[in-house]
């Protein structure tokens, strides 16, 4: 049995480490509007569940007078705990200790907990708040980053990996979050960039603030590097808890089943979509009209909003939704929206989450900027991701499904398991206006009243082709359904595809158009 003296020594040592960088540094952290690393872990995990590892680790730097410095926990707190009663691994960089800088032991603590999460098949949550590499440790610090990135990649698609950016995350450090599944940012706290404002100013003469360069808003709206934006750390933690409620704990696990609730009456599916296909509506309301309790947890809400992605529940099970958003850019596919959808489809596939695709798009976004930005290569990501996915894949064509967009949005041809269409659906190479202009070019040009002739021909084309029955006649659409039958049809499709099993050609891995 331990003597009281030894126990007191342990208590004293613990207390010291728990003070992080000390009172002054903590005050600075608070003045920046940030919680301390320890507070963050306590807030995020179930009460009293945190079990700290490697508390007494000491740094190894000997140069530049570093051997005289004590860095508690070497600037990072790691351990396990539970969230909603389920185990998770967590690390939080402690900015109060040497600016959360990453030295070799700091990195080794992180990689240890990463190895643990992969081995024990549980999610990994990383809270980033660090000035970057610890320059005094030189190449050892770079090695540390490399070891982390390697493990992020190994764990990718096996366990959920979540990055929370609650402070600076600059230079090479940004690549760990970038390799993980979901990145959370908080307004005015998160800052991510490869090269900072100072270097940019010196080299290129561009004058920009950290916030404008890589703040939470920038990554939520412009770059797409972040998946979830919030205005406070508390709100951010609620988002993380909500996200985890949809996820399986690993690629061999299934998400916890939720209680089945009927969709809310205020989302009346028959009233959401205007008959005129040029009029917008919010496709998220269509999703809410079919999911349990009208629940929809959107991802990357503010980036490439012309496509909507996120999780919902159907009959208590997690489902991934991918939907064109007619409310933004008419719901076109473009560079960013293809990137966004492609990655999400692969996420769902990796974690055995069925995908429901809602289609209403006029095609791809025209423009020199799009072509030169590589819309061919990026657009291909959607085709690749759907073709490769072996989870249940269900499609509902709401209104327009034109050209390449029709093929890309989980068509029968990419092995959709079920394709439903509403009576208003149009599956065609292009819209009636464009088609009539090409097919009847001569008749329109030589007509006495070209505009009248154009209108007539557009109408003619509409009557003949602007419907779901041409595609249904070929079996490309399985069922034409009334809007009100959508939830029932989806539930049925999910039920019968529960044991779906398809093989893919044996290969090491494919070559997706990254």
């Amino acid at each position, binding site marked *: 049995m331990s003597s009281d003296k030894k126990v007191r020594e342990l208590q004293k040592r613990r207390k010291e480490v728990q003070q992080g960088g000390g009172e002054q540094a903590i005050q600075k952290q608070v003045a920046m509007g940030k919680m301390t690393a320890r507070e963050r872990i306590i807030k995020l995990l179930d009460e009293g569940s945190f079990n700290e590892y490697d508390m007494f680790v000491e740094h190894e730097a000997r140069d530049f007078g570093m051997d005289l410095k004590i860095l508690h926990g070497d600037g990072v707190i790691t351990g396990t705990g539970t969230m909603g009663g389920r185990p998770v691994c967590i690390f939080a960089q402690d900015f109060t200790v040497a600016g959360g800088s990453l030295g070799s032991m700091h990195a080794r603590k992180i990689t240890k907990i990463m190895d643990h999460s992969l081995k024990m098949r549980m999610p990994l949550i990383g809270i980033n708040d660090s000035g970057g590499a610890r320059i005094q440790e030189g190449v050892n610090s770079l090695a540390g980053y490399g070891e982390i990135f390697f493990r992020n990649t190994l764990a990718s698609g096996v366990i959920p990996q979540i990055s929370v950016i609650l402070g600076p995350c600059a230079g090479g450090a940004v690549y760990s979050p970038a390799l993980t599944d979901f990145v959370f940012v908080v307004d005015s706290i998160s800052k991510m960039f490869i090269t900072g404002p100072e270097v940019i100013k010196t080299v290129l003469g561009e004058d920009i603030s950290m916030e404008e360069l890589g703040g939470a808003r920038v990554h939520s709206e412009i770059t797409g590097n972040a998946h979830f934006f919030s205005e406070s750390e508390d709100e951010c933690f609620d988002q993380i808890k909500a996200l985890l409620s949809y996820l399986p704990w690993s690629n061999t696990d299934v998400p916890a089943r939720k209680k089945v609730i009927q969709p809310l009456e205020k989302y009346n599916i028959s009233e959401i979509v205007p008959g005129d296909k040029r009029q917008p509506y919010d496709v998220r309301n269509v999703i809410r009209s079919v999911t349990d309790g009208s629940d929809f947890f959107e991802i990357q809400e503010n980036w490439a909003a012309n496509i909507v992605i996120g999780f919902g529940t159907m009959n208590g099970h997690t489902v991934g939704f991918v939907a064109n958003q007619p409310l933004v850019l008419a719901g*076109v596919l473009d560079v960013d929206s293809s990137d966004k959808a492609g990655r999400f489809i692969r996420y769902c596939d990796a974690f055995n989450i069925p995908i429901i695709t809602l289609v209403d798009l006029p095609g791809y976004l025209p423009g020199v900027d799009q072509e*030169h930005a590589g819309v061919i290569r990026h657009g291909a990501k959607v085709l690749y991701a759907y073709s490769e996915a072996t989870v249940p894949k269900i499609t509902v064509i709401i209104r327009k499904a034109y050209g390449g967009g029709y093929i890309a949005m989980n068509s029968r041809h990419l092995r959709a398991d079920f394709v439903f269409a509403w009576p208003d659906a149009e599956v065609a190479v292009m819209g009636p206006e*464009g088609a009539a202009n090409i097919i009847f070019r001569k008749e329109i040009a030589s007509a006495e009243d070209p505009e009248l002739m154009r209108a007539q021909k557009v109408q003619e084309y509409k009557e003949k082709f602007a419907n779901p029955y041409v595609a249904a006649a070929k079996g490309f659409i399985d069922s034409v359904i009334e809007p009100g039958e959508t939830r029932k049809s989806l539930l049925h499709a999910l039920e019968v595809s529960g044991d779906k099993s398809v093989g893919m050609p044996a290969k090491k891995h494919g070559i997706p158009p990254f």
Partner: protein
Amino acid sequence: MSNKEKTAKKKPFQEPPLESLEIGGAVYITRLTSKFSNRKNWERPNERVVIAVIPGTIQKIMVKVGDQVEAGLPMLILEAMKMRNEVLAPVGGVIRTINVSVGEQVPKSHLLVELD
């Protein structure tokens, strides 16, 4: 908190107004993204107008107005990122204007030389 209030609070990003967007001959009523609204319309580059591709300092000018130059001839030296970059004549022609002087710091896209 009612759902409406919750939605209102959850909108830290501005929602742009509805506008029209033509795709495939049809005009759709929709919101435009800031990225789409801020995109630059493509213009064919004018080879006779030489601009700074990078900010820097004019270290040396080797030509004067009225000089006949051949394509590929170094016209001036722009020091940037600790490198001495030769600015070459993109096409043959006569120097019409030189818009910088030695020692001058120029921002990116600054007009350097016009050729006739």
